[in-house]
């Protein structure tokens, strides 16, 4: 009971905070406390949003820009998820596999993705391939490392009990290791898509001719701050939607999380 009420209070505080910020923005720009050429009004931002939605920006509608970005992101994320989960689980299981893959991933993991992006562009061109490769490389380490640590953190009791109940090594992998790591897998996917999302925007700002990140960068070159603002809002909402979707998946897939 008590917790429910607190939760409600928190939500009210959030709504009030957002409302105050919006109001300040509205007042500051409409009363010309700040220069609207630098900081557009909410109305102008909204207008720009409607305009790029219907008319588009440089031959593509907002939806097309957004789907160009999301297409790259999800293709790379999907590939990274499949390979990262398998590699991570196997490396958590086998010290030999770990000895092979860990140094490779640890080598490039600390590098900011844009540092090797130039190389990828040089090798694969400015098109989609280099971006997908970049995003793949950016998404892979968090998945690999979390899954690997997840396996190593499994309670030995799960493994011992399964063994005494007659499960072979292979069955232990499928029936114990995989489900026991599911919470870690989903957490790692959430981290990875966050990294991938910020990388896709940054990569499009470096080299692209479509995508939401490119749209914002290009608009800023023409001092179209209203479009920049609209683009940033769209990016932010998309990010929130993706994260919420993964949270929902987590609730459905691992209802036991935090209760054992």
């Amino acid at each position, binding site marked *: 009971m008590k917790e429910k009420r607190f939760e409600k209070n928190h939500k009210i505080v959030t709504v009030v905070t957002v409302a105050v910020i919006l109001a300040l923005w509205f007042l500051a720009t409409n009363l010309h406390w700040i220069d609207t050429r630098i900081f557009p009004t909410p109305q102008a931002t909204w207008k720009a949003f409607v305009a790029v939605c219907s008319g588009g920006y440089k031959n593509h509608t907002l939806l097309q820009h957004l789907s160009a970005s999301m297409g790259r992101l999800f293709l790379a994320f999907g590939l990274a998820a499949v390979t990262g989960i398998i590699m991570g689980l196997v490396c958590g299981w086998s010290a030999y596999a770990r000895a092979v893959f860990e140094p490779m991933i640890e080598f490039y993991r600390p590098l900011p993705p844009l540092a090797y992006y130039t190389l990828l562009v040089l090798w694969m061109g400015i098109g989609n391939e280099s971006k997908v490769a970049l995003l793949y490389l950016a998404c892979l380490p968090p998945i690999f490392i979390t899954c690997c640590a997840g396996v190593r953190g499994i309670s030995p009791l799960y493994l011992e009990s399964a063994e005494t*109940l007659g499960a072979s090594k292979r069955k232990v992998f499928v029936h114990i290791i995989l489900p026991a790591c599911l919470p870690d897998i989903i957490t790692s996917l959430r981290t990875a898509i966050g990294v991938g999302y910020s990388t896709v925007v940054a990569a499009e700002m470096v080299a692209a001719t479509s995508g939401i990140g490119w749209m914002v960068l290009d608009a800023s070159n023409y001092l179209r701050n209203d479009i920049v603002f609209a683009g940033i809002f769209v990016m932010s909402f998309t990010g929130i939607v993706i994260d919420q979707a993964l949270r929902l998946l987590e609730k459905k897939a691992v209802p036991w999380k935090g209760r054992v």
Partner: protein
Amino acid sequence: MEEILRLKNISMLYPTAKQEDFQALVNIDLSVNEGDFICVLGPSGCGKSTLLNIIAGLLKPTSGAAEMRGKPITGTDPHRGMVFQFPALYPWLNTRDNVAFGLKMRGVGKKMVQTEVDKYLGLVGLSEFGSSRIYELSGGMKQRAQLARVLINQPDLVLMDEPFGALDALTRGGMQDLIRNLWMQIKNTVILVTHDVDEALCLATRIVVLTSRPGHIAGEFKAEFTRRIASGEADCQYTSEYIALKKELMGIIRSA
């Protein structure tokens, strides 16, 4: 009575950070017959879990050998079931599927699994909780579920590592009755490890006292209170024989 388990001069050393290894068990000799209910009684840290893990095949002794029906124990086997102190039930499965785990791993047919699960859930009194999530079960119910999960494999030898240590006294009493009844009904062999003298006296047909530094067998006693309790004589805990044996056991443990 036929022998089911034999421990021959088992010693166990654990490597430590220090120069010398830690001697957990030394020269353990034990012969267990079919149908025995053995309680290994000893203070915590005397090597009870180590001994049980060796019998289960989870741990290899440094020297000596464990044999089941004349064959050396080299690894785990579903014929030797292990009930752990903390029921490591799998939270991603409901109670039914936890109990079914062993049969599924061994490739038993679906229909057979269903009837067996129903039977064993019934035996431990959890028929109505088959579809419950693990986190919805109380501590006592979890331990019952673990018991069903082990017994469904029909192990000839059941090992139990302080199975009631984490339960409150009232729940513990009920669980002891359940274990005794199941043992009399199924007629399997049980080795139960405990630090509770009364638990040993109420359940065992043989009590093996283990004392520490290093863990060794300090004495062996026959007991028949469990059969007397089963035949309705619950008051035998207040008889002079019971108290005399309890005194003797406590004496050995204290003086060690």
